[in-house]
């Protein structure tokens, strides 16, 4: 079945580009007719951003070194950085209730089923189907999607399931005594081995504690720009799994 899908999907890939043409053309025209002052403004803004980011990156390098040293002292393996592949969203799946998008990188770029996809703000989804020149990504808000997470502040583990709404995730199995409050950052825990650890998933939006129930209802606002991003990153986790435990 997967083979059939791949063959048909590869044949149909150009249709996504055709359907996307108005936006691609619009983007091109925007580039051509951008005014000088707008470009200068953008340039200024980007320069400022580069400065800020390079400052953070300097600190990051410092911390990375320190972290490696500490890990060495503890005798555990250093964490390798993830590699990423930039992809562009070329289509969305039109069925109501299905949160899936199509990206322009497929098996010829080395994409595999199960890889995590992030955007500039946080976890975006995972690859569920790979054609030769495109692949299909299931968003974290789809009702069929769930991702193992932890609260960044205190490491409480849970699973963030999609609710079918673009702006909401729900944490499963959070007991009413768990220390989860509004504003907590939720990040991937890396358990289960499918998603790399430490990518932001969202921010706790509300915690409803029903004293009669044993679990509280925790809603999370995804940090990724699920209905805005045009460019996403496919994460290639470093190959460590084959030599983890003796």
């Amino acid at each position, binding site marked *: *079945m997967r083979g*059939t899908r791949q063959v048909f999907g590869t044949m149909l890939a150009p*249709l996504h580009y055709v359907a996307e043409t108005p936006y691609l053309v619009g983007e091109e025209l925007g580039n051509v007719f951008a005014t000088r002052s707008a470009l200068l403004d953008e340039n200024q803004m980007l320069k400022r951003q580069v400065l800020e980011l390079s400052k953070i990156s300097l600190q990051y390098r410092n911390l990375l070194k320190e972290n490696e040293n500490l890990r060495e002292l503890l005798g555990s393996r250093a964490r390798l950085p993830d590699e990423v592949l930039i992809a562009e969203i070329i289509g*969305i799946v*039109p*069925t*109501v*209730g*299905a949160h899936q998008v199509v990206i322009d990188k497929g098996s010829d770029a080395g994409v595999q089923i199960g890889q995590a996809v992030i955007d500039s703000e946080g976890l975006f989804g995972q690859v569920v189907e790979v054609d030769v020149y495109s692949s*299909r990504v299931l968003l974290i808000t789809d009702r069929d999607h769930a991702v193992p997470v932890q609260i960044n502040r205190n490491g409480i583990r849970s699973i963030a399931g999609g609710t079918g709404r673009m702006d909401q995730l729900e944490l499963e199995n959070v007991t009413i005594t768990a220390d989860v409050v509004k504003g907590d950052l939720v990040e991937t825990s890396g358990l289960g081995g499918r998603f790399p650890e430490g990518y932001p998933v969202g921010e706790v939006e509300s915690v409803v504690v029903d004293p009669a129930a044993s679990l509280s209802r925790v809603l999370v606002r995804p940090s990724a720009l699920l209905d805005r991003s045009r460019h996403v990153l496919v994460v290639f986790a470093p190959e460590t799994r084959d030599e983890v435990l003796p």
Partner: protein
Amino acid sequence: MNPAQGGWLILASLVVALVLSIFHLPETWPQWLGWLRPAWVPLFVFFWVMALPHRLGLVSAWIFGIFVDVLFGDPIGLNGAVLAGITYIGWRFYERLRMYSVVQQCGVVFLLILGGDLVRMLVHDLSADRGWSWAVLVPALTSMLVWPFVSLFLQRLRLQFGVE
């Protein structure tokens, strides 16, 4: 389908229907506008079956459905079954349907699209965690409203290119 006799027009219009059904509105527009999308593919298939019942058969409708399945990420065969059902009804009753007034045809289109969407929703409910909702009525309604224009437009094209 015999390409020499304008089968390319049928095929091209179906490809256009596929593109229309994956085309999306700008991200800045409200999301619910996207739900109003008519079911272009079943509409176009229904028109061709009714106009030229000898050109579009059950098997070709079913095979075309596989393309729709792959494009939408649905279970393989689902849209094939739906399209084949619509094709069968069109093929069985085309003489009567052609005699209907526009309003009556719109009613038939509403029921056909609704029936097809209910089947799709049932399968989605079984294969994925999507469930039932009243949203199923929306594409049927919008399809019904665009049907007169679709059928007029395709009829004009068909006569223009002399597809028999």
